[in-house]
């Protein structure tokens, strides 16, 4: 066997032991730490600082100011009812889709995915046009049919807000419960039947307890969404004359900006989300999913009998509220001179498109900014998330558990809160990013990190470490293995991550609304501006444009990677 002179004899043995890839891992970890800890650190610092040293005065004012107290309470009410409503809609639909012979399941799943990716603030706009008290299409129809004076519904109200938010939040509950139900093998239920339990008893004693963690954690997930949401409350609650925490924080940024107050107001929201998430984790961790796993096991469909079509109708009614009606009114508004008038030939126009894309001054730069940010964030975010997940999966550096924690931490940071932290952190030296696209970039990368990380984590879990070790023992260094073995195997997973992040970025509103400056608007911010000007036609055009971009990415992902956006493989 003729080897070249072994390296050991030419190099000092200490040098031989050094892993040359270590700097890469350490840099990635440091980048993450900086990304998360800097804004949060500043947020905490500003909330307790004043010109005369440390103080709790901001917190005192936050909790004694009756306006802020009211906003706090409104948020609690909103979040609780959204959670409950999402559960009421999502759980039955999940059961129908996972366990019964409901017709048209593929279509329902597809539409569910559509409501999942629809930006909630677009839905809110659409519902303003559908159920605004005066001009709302549904109300006009109602008045025409009944001759009544009063509107049927007023969307500018707490119930209206809950309804609209729930329409775009219930898919979270649906996914959670449907995926769990899919995992429960029918044998478990049959084992109970053979021992003498009736259908209802089986459902109550076997199925329900097994799904219970998913139900509860779906509820918490919905509550978290509602807590962090900015767009829908801004569109529906402000005209109704009330605030939620997020809109209140935003309002505190209006001239003259009260950053300390906003920071102090952000901390309770941050803590609330963190606590809820912790609770959800414990619920899922205690019992349940592992034992639900199990291999094989047939899942037999429960026949609905005469209820098949009524059940389908019910599902479609829900999806009509979240998809058909809103998309319909957006399309109508985009193509008509006056959106509230009937769709006649005289009312038809392409002027809205002309106005939006060529006359309205900020559209073109906003589209460019959005796409630019989307691509940059998706590339950097997917890359960083992949590196971090790789480090954690292969335990490459000390404290890799901390890395996982940090990467997932932004889940508990509502966009508005993150924005406040970033605003404070990057409006002062050494990193003066405010006023540039970079601050939005940093915000998006941070906000999308949990999604990117969990995607990448799942990807690397699926790649057996022996595949890498086989290359190393044959003479390839870690970085070479990463490039030649791991990356090609992780390719489709990383592309999926890229798509997830891109979609997340182009619809982002809650952080952008605080961090944008006139030169750095993005599409969602322009839509928000247009609302102030009452330009519904243009809103509809831009909204449809945004949806088209989103669905293009979804379809691309489905065809290229052959997987469903909700995680199911075809």
């Amino acid at each position, binding site marked *: *066997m*003729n*080897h*070249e002179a*072994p*390296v*050991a004899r030419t190099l000092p*043995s*200490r040098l*031989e*032991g050094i*892993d040359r890839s270590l700097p890469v891992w350490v840099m990635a970890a440091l980048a993450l730490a900086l990304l998360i800890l800097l804004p949060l650190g500043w947020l905490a610092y500003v909330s307790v600082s004043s010109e005369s040293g440390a103080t709790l005065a901001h917190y005192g004012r936050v909790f004694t100011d009756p306006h802020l107290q009211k906003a706090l309470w409104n948020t609690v009410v909103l979040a609780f009812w959204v959670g409950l409503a999402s559960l009421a809609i999502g759980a039955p639909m999940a059961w129908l889709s996972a366990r019964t012979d409901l017709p048209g399941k593929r279509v329902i799943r597809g539409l569910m995915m559509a409501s999942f990716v629809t930006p909630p603030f677009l839905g809110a706009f659409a519902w303003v046009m559908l159920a605004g008290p005066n001009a709302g299409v549904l109300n006009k129809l109602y008045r025409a049919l009944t001759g009544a004076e009063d509107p049927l519904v007023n969307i500018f109200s707490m119930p209206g807000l809950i309804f609209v938010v729930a329409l775009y939040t219930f898919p979270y509950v649906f996914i959670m419960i449907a995926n769990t139900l899919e995992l429960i093998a029918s044998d478990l239920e049959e084992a109970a039947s053979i021992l003498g339990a009736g259908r209802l008893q089986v459902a109550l004693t076997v199925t329900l307890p097994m799904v219970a963690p998913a139900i509860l954690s779906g509820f918490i997930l919905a509550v978290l969404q509602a807590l962090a949401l900015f767009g829908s409350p801004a569109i529906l609650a402000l005209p109704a004359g009330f605030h939620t925490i997020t809109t209140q924080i935003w309002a505190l940024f209006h001239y003259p900006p009260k950053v300390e107050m906003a920071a102090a107001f952000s901390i309770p929201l941050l803590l609330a989300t963190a606590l809820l998430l912790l609770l959800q984790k414990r619920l899922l961790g205690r019992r349940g999913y592992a034992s639900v796993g199990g291999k094989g096991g047939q899942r037999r469909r429960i026949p609905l009998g005469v209820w098949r079509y009524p059940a389908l109708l019910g599902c479609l009614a829900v999806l009509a509220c979240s998809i058909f009606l809103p998309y319909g009114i957006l399309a109508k508004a985009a193509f008509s001179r006056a959106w509230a008038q009937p769709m006649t030939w005289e009312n038809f126009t392409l002027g809205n498109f002309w106005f939006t894309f060529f006359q309205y001054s900020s559209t073109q730069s906003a589209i460019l900014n959005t796409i630019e940010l989307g691509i940059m964030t998706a590339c950097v975010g997917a890359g960083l998330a992949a590196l971090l997940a790789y480090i954690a999966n292969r335990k490459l550096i000390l404290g890799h558990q901390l890395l996982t924690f940090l990467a997932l931490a932004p889940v508990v940071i509502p966009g508005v809160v993150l924005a406040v932290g970033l605003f404070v952190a990057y409006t002062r030296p050494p990193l003066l990013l405010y006023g540039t696209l970079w601050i939005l970039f940093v915000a998006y990368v941070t906000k999308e990190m949990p999604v990117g990380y969990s995607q990448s984590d799942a990807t690397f879990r699926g790649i*057996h470490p*022996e*595949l890498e*070790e*086989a*290359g*190393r*023992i*044959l*003479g*390839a*260094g*870690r970085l070479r293995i990463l490039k030649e*073995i791991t990356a*090609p*195997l992780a390719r489709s997973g990383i592309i999926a991550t890229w798509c997830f992040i891109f979609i997340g970025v182009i619809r982002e509103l809650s952080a952008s609304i605080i961090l944008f400056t006139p030169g750095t608007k993005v599409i969602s911010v322009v839509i928000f501006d247009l609302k102030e000007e009452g330009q519904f036609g243009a809103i509809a055009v831009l909204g449809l444009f945004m949806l088209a971009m989103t669905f293009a990415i979804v379809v691309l992902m489905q065809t290229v990677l052959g997987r469903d956006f909700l995680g199911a493989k075809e």
Partner: protein
Amino acid sequence: MPGVVIKGLTKRYGKVAAVERLDLQVKPGELVSLLGPSGCGKTTTLRLVAGFLKPEAGEIWVGDRCLSSPATVVPPERRQMAMIFQSYALWPHMTVAGNVVYGLRFKKGMTKAERERRVKDILGVVQLGGFESRYPGELSGGQQQRVAVARALVVEPEILLLDEPLSNLDANLREEMRFEIRRLHEAFGITTLYVTHDQGEAMVISDRIAVLHKGRVVQVGTAEELFQQPRTRFVAEFIGRTNLVDGVAVEPGVMARGTLRLRVASFGLKSGARVTVSIRPHEIELVLDHQARALAGGGENLLRGMVQRVSYLGDAVDYQVQVEGSDVILRVAAPPLLRFQPGEAVSLAVAPAACVPLTEGDT
């Protein structure tokens, strides 16, 4: 051709020691199996040798290079080794040729033509000529196994490591591949460490076997040595089936349990010391009374007993015999010529050489 020397190797996971002060020497060109039940530390040892893990104590030497110590671990890629994995670890995105040629790309000064020639040669050796452009997913389990073997051998490693390479194959193929691996070892003569939990596999393939228990080597030897002269209870039970009789030494060559007396294969026992004796089932002979009388006075241990259970196994009959005047039940593997029924009284004859006192306690 270097050998491997492992000295005092220790690896802990948290507080649990997976490998503890393990010593082992592999001579140049030798194939040594690490044999033991799951959790005995055999795979951890192999991965320490490969450089995937860092030891807490001890050293691993290959030739005159110290490759692992708590201070420095030479990374796997600079160890001149090759490894065959339990999962084969073939890269699904590369063809058979791409997989096999991979390690050659790191050999400086080798031309492309030379690399291709070597790939072709080695695929011939493992009987996969013509499969170069297939992908691993298009091959059967046995063929994948052979690609993994080719990929490891083509780089002409100083040391070859195998981690339960046959455990994913079905029974027939496994048997066949045992001989194949032994054949390749004889052809290439690479110093090899082979991890397995299957004693049959270890016996066919190895020059020597190291039996591991709780992170330590409890006995090293050829298959024959381990089977005939086990030194601990663990080895006696793990390699083949056996009867273990606990008792006390009454003379240097005799142990006693109650009224039972056994002459054993040793004259080194200390009177009064506790001793366990291992007797392989096939070393015990069931004899008829007149044969027993003929044997009496010879060197054999002669016992009387009562047959309790009989299981017919085809090539042998498995008996459980209760020894008269004792709580000892012996299992006997007898040829199927003579048949006894449950409840029948029999005599048992055992040569003292077959009664092996276990000299070392298990930790």
